[in-house]
């Protein structure tokens, strides 16, 4: 059994919220606006609601197997081989989204801040930090998330608050966007934006019982929903939705527009640090989750020897995509649109199989 360390509800909520909310800093909001128009800010609430519903299945699954994490449950319910495949899919998925997220971050950073720096340098530095934190272990990552969460939250809210002067309330209309049906469909489909709450189930052993996981998961999704919705509402009020679809990082652009006289303007530095540190936490946690699942699959007791090779894999995977459009329209769009299959559908399948088996066993016991 890998020593994962322990953490409480507050830390878990902080970590998952940071992982989910960090997406707002990148290209996802522009994509969402592209599909739902001015209804984006409540479309994300529909996504959050769907994710809450999906997380319920995970909770029910964990409740049936107290003291076990999701990966162990896969093996118990599906057997060693099919469970191994399910775990493998999860492991690859987390490493893949970490790599995609890293590449997206590096591209956005190049666009706005370091236009002359090569991608390999930006990604290399990031991976250097990720390697060190991975070595420190899950406890360190989670605690750092908790420690930085108030700062990130204050920065996040203050950017929206300071953008008040640029708000044009007529931009919220048409309130139904491209229509209720479109909003609803995209809202449900993009529930994977909140799917990272699943990592609580992967690290179930680190939290004190299923009730804690339930509380942490629900709270994280709920808070993330509110925060993302508020940010999207700000974008909608600042930029016409036709323009917003074209902007790489709406949050960064919105921060640049803040202007309260000669010396209170261009508050990029405030945003820059919360953006960077939030992303660092998110990617490190996702990557660590992937590697942790991999170690579970192969019964590797000590995660440390696997970390440096895995980080090299992360670096290589982040370097694979050819250019930014492939990242945005391919990877990001794909993971948002179909991520729910992995996050929610796979645990649901396992839950159904588990319940059917239990019924069978009960029936058999009654007949005997």
């Amino acid at each position, binding site marked *: 059994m890998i020593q994962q360390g322990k*953490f*409480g509800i*507050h*830390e878990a909520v902080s970590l998952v919220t940071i992982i989910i909310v960090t997406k707002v800093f990148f290209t996802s909001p522009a994509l969402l606006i592209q599909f739902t128009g001015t209804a984006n800010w409540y479309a994300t609430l529909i996504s959050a609601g769907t994710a809450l519903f999906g997380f319920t299945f995970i909770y029910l699954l964990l409740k049936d197997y107290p003291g076990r994490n999701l990966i162990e449950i896969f093996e118990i319910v599906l057997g060693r081989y099919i469970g191994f495949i399910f775990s493998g899919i999860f492991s690859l998925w987390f490493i893949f989204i970490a790599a995609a997220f890293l590449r997206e971050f590096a591209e956005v*950073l190049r666009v706005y*801040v*370091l236009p002359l*720096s090569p991608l390999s*340098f*930006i990604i290399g*530095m*990031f991976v*250097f*930090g990720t390697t*060190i*934190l991975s070595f*420190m*272990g899950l*406890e*360190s*990552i989670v*605690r*750092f*998330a*908790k*420690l*930085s969460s108030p700062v990130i939250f204050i920065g996040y809210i203050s950017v929206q608050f300071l953008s008040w002067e640029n708000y044009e309330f007529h931009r919220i209309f048409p309130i139904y966007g491209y229509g209720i049906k479109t909003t609803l469909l995209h809202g449900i489909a993009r529930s994977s934006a909140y799917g990272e709450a699943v990592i609580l189930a992967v690290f179930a052993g680190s939290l004190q019982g299923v009730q804690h996981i339930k509380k942490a998961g629900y709270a994280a999704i709920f808070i993330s929903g509110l925060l993302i919705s508020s940010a999207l509402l700000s974008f909608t009020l600042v930029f016409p939705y036709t323009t917003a679809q074209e902007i790489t990082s709406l949050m960064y652009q919105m921060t640049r527009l803040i202007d309260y006289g*000669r*010396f209170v*303007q*261009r508050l*990029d*530095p405030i945003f*820059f*640090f919360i953006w*960077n*540190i939030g992303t*660092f*936490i998110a990617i490190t946690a996702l990557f660590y989750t992937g590697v942790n699942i991999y170690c579970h699959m192969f019964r590797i007791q*000590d995660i*440390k*020897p696997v970390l*440096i090779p895995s980080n090299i894999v992360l670096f290589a995977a982040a370097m694979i995509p050819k250019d930014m459009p492939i990242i945005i329209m391919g990877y990001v769009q794909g993971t948002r649109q179909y991520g729910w299959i992995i996050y929610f559908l796979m645990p649901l399948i396992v839950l159904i199989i588990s319940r059917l088996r239990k019924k069978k066993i009960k029936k058999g016991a009654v007949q005997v």
Partner: protein
Amino acid sequence: MSGVINTIKNLFTYKEPVNSEGFELLEKNEVSDEQGEDRGDESENAGGEPTKRKRGKKPPLKVEEWNEAKNSPPEGILSSDLNTNLKKIKQEFLVPKNSDVVIREFKIAQKINAFIVFIDGMVDKAVVNDFVLRQLMDPENFPDTIQGSPVEYIVDNVLAINQLERVKEYEKAVKEVLSGLTALFIDGCSECILIETRGFEKRSIEKPSLETVIRGAQEAFTENLRTNITLIRRIIKNRHLVTEFVSVGKTNNANCGIMYIEGIVNPDIVKEVKRRLEGIDIDLVMGGGMLGQLIEDSPFALFPQVLSTERPDRTASLIMEGRVALIVDGAPFAEVVPTTFFEHLHTSEEAFSVWYFGTFLRFVRFFGMLVSAILPGMYIALTTYHQEMIPTDLLATIALTRENVPFPVLVEVLIMEISFELIREAGIRMPTVIGPALGIIGALILGQAAVAANLVSPIIIIIIAITGLGSFSGPNYPLAFSIRIIRFIFSIFGAIAGFYGISVAIFIIGGVACGIKSFGVPYFVPIAPRTKSGPDIIIRGPIWHQKERPDYLNPLDKKRAGDNARGWTKGEQKGDKK
């Protein structure tokens, strides 16, 4: 070079993880008890030398040797023969080579042979002359025949000394003589008397030099262990305040006092402290800083995990919270464990100030330390990578002042930083008489002359000056050291990749710091992880709101105040009659 190659090789080759015994402060005592027992078994031999039995044939003993071996006491136990004891003591203290050791042979009441042994300079000679030798040599103090053991008679009737101890082991006697006691050996007795005669020179109690306060107590620890313990006992007049002594350092055998309050402190912490102290296997342990390095959880981390303080009042308040204080003989500092990051930002001043002023002071200090750590790095990042973030007027000023400077900003900052560090170091080492001259050198050469020579820009001078002020605002010397190192890290990362580089540095340093534990207590508790705590982390809440001891210490007695600490505000007191 080979070390670097080995380090790189170790990163890529698998090694069995070292089974280092971690310590975790657990809620349930049963679990930790088990662990403690396990550890106790293992640590029993800690620090002990592995005993190797020489194999081979022993030569047969002679008759005299056989008789001597048969009649002599077991190894390390005093003999009843005075000459044997004298020989052994001389052997132990390397007499006559060691001229500090005084062995005075005499006759008790002109009858019984005896000798005393003490270290010259460690004892009060007046006590030895007037209350030991005079009493023992005076026949009037003794009857013609002594019933029972002479040792017993002398202890009960002759020596008018407040502390006497009878011991039977050479080891104990030697150890106590080394710490200033006098040992009396009497012919025919297989035990000696240890007489309290300590009286070496010591510094008087002075004002604190590192942790000065305006409104608090003006006493600091001295190098004398007994004085330091007394200073704490004067503040905590509690029968449950326990002082235990452990000897640290294989060769120098320094006395280390472990102070805690029985009934408040979690016994697991005390057990762990003792385990670590007993596990120290090094020849010399001096003063606090040295001990801290030997017992802290992560010695390679940048942050201090043991709180070092020179103030008895601060030590007392920390002991009252359920912590353990360690005081080593010869060090004017107490080491308090467990500790957290936030305690390193606190001073005694806040406790003596009203809550809002205390909070204000903390914010100022916190801001100062933040500025000290990050400002040079931020300046490098801004001027090198993010010029667009600087308001135009300011950017023009910076550009104008840097026009004739031939160095990149990083070099400018490093020149000034290293110069500043040199001045600081020189200031500490120099005699106080030359102090003002150093200030002049610093101000003139590093300030005006460097700017006039176009080696650095005036803005750098301002940046470094603010950085220096910020670092001096830090109340904790070891933490200020850490900040100094971190400043260089931020500067280098800022030069490598601007704000992005600084973010990477924050992430790495913050993450590493979050992984640190001090005696099983996470470094950033009660914020990360979140635990119950009184309003005394960053904001110094009112004293009467601090009703509970920190939860992360798992104290046995959590409450430190009643429901209403300002009981007089209840209005009508109990027992009041109209």
